[in-house]
């Protein structure tokens, strides 16, 4: 009736593409401004992200982080909750991963450690989301504030633990010892031979992220719980009318959300760094907000948006490396422009495109 005026490929393919091109055009202007060749810059960026196995590997490595944090934001979003605390939940999730790895890495192989680490990540991340969730459900505290506060609290907690409790003795690094084999996820390069990811740290966590995406899809769109989450998010009054318990939905949703954030640590800690270190979350939790929204809170969209951001991170690093005049700050600007054009300004070109794709309407022609 009113949906689907545009062919799907236009809505989900052409329009995002045009937006991306716009973002790169504007970025090109900035590149031009600092006296570099924008076409070369874009070429390096895209080549760096996708042009060779190792680049792809890094892109996917970053994408793994964004998938987890993006899913976390999206799940909460479906319940109408704005979980801004991914950063802290992932940080504390890292603690769960690290404790599992430190305890087991010397005695069992990685695949025995893995389920414990997954549980550790999810449980710790969920625990960190639980208090804000509980406060929102029972005391009406605004989840945005409490999750922001819990980010700050997590920073202090983790510095304390890393410096005073977990640091290896005699080292000035605020980090744990490096895990042995039993605490390391295999790199994708080591377990398949289709693509050569070189030394890129993309690892089994990517597979976990994809599984998590599928599970999130199933939970949200195919289970009663998901039905209730979406109901509550879309119309809380109707959800109560339908016999759903808001407190239960809020808490369960936030536990899932926090657990997903926490699992981001699997990729960084167990997959790549092999030790727990300070500030390893590095803003991935915040970027997850943009990823979730650009992916329209749908796992497929989130995977695509996560890959886009992975490309920006990896391609950006390559760009900064190849063109010394382009600093990492330039990369941040380009990321900002992409978020702006592909995310916030997604309707900029829509009216024009709608005009192109809808046949002109002569008022008198249609009858009946």
């Amino acid at each position: 009736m009113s949906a689907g005026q545009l062919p799907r490929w236009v809505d989900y393919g052409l329009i995002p593409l045009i937006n991306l091109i716009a973002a790169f055009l504007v970025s090109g202007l900035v590149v031009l401004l600092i006296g570099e060749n924008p076409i070369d810059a874009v070429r390096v960026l895209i080549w760096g992200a996708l042009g060779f196995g190792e680049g792809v590997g890094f892109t996917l490595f970053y994408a793994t982080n964004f998938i987890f944090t993006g899913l976390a934001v999206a799940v909460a979003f479906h319940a109408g909750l704005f979980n801004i605390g991914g950063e802290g939940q992932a940080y504390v999730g890292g603690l769960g991963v690290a404790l599992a790895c430190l305890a087991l890495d010397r005695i069992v192989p990685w695949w025995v450690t893995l389920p414990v680490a997954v549980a550790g990540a999810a449980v710790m991340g969920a625990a960190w989301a639980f208090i804000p969730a509980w406060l929102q459900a029972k005391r009406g505290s605004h989840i945005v504030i409490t999750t922001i506060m819990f980010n700050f609290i997590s920073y202090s907690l983790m510095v304390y633990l890393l410096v005073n409790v977990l640091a290896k003795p005699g080292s000035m690094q605020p980090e744990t010892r490096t895990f042995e084999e039993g605490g390391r996820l295999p790199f994708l390069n080591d377990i398949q031979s289709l693509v050569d990811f070189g030394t890129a740290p993309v690892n089994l966590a990517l597979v976990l992220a994809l599984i998590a995406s599928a599970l999130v899809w199933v939970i949200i769109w195919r289970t009663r719980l998901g039905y209730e989450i979406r109901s509550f998010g879309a119309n809380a009054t109707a959800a109560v009318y339908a016999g759903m318990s808001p407190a239960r939905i809020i808490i369960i949703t936030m536990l899932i959300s926090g657990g997903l954030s926490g699992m981001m640590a699997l990729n960084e800690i167990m997959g790549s760094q092999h030790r727990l270190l300070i500030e390893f979350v590095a803003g991935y939790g915040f970027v997850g907000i943009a990823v979730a929204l650009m992916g329209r809170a749908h796992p497929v969209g989130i995977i695509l948006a996560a890959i886009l951001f992975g490309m920006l991170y990896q391609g950006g690093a390559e760009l900064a490396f190849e063109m010394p005049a382009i600093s990492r700050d330039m990369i941040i600007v380009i990321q900002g422009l992409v978020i702006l054009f592909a995310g916030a300004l997604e309707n900029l070109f829509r009216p024009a495109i709608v005009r192109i794709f809808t046949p002109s309407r002569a008022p008198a022609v249609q009858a009946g």
Partner: protein
Amino acid sequence: ADINPAVLYDLGGKFDKSFNEAAFTGAEKFKADTGIGYRDFEIQNDAQREQALRNFAKRGQSPIIAIGFSQANAVEKVAKEFPDIQFAIVDSVIDLPNVRSIVFKEHEGSYIVGVAAALASKTGKVGFVGGMDIGLIRKFACGYKQGVMSVKSDAEVFENMTGDTGAAWNDPVKGGELAKSQFDKGADVVYHAAGGTGIGVLQAAHDAGKLGIGVDSNQNGLFPGSVLTSMLKRVDVAVAKTFEDAKNDAWSSGVQVLGLAEGGVDWALDDNNASLVNADMKAAVEKAKADIISGTVVVHDYMADNTCP
């Protein structure tokens, strides 16, 4: 020999007003002196450490110098992969045949500025503002305290840390407030080891008519007349020296511990603080320095046993 040097900065970035910037200064000096260019890279996250080191190594850059203890794991790993390339790391020790480890005795440098602080203080109370509560910063604080106490054993040393995230190194506002809180408690000299945050500390000292002490590079000129001195940590010298050694085929691996004796740490005296440092003070500081170099005085290193006497 022909060399192709490279520098890898830590998360703080090339211009952190601290040791990364000092490394940059050293590399620039080497370039100016020899005409040999270099590559450098600022990482954005932990995954880029190894990636950048490998990128350098694959392109045949050597020596590659990594700044900051956080690079240790990455350097260790990549250095093993490229045994023919020379690596160096600042602020950490890696035991590999192709890695030079450069560490500084920040506690010694902090000790002598502590002596200066105690002598300049009229109230017998001095302050320290650190960036983050981590081992390295405690090492600064602990050396400083010992220096102060060596002059006035009943002196009070206030110690504050800024925060628990990267922002702690770039928060002049908080730095200023921390310094003010120390002035309110009676301190009249404050030493910082907090990167960009320290600018706020020195500013607050300047505003309140008290004295600040700079760190890493010579910050005396930031607020002339208000910065008592600066504790120099000569990362610049170390970087330039490392490049030169490679160029002159004098490369050596192993650990270089740079203290007062080696000129790796020092205090800064120049026109900007000439009026603040009187002859007595100068003599006392130089004496402390000499005592440490000679071994008469041993400054306890916090990192040795995680305690401060």
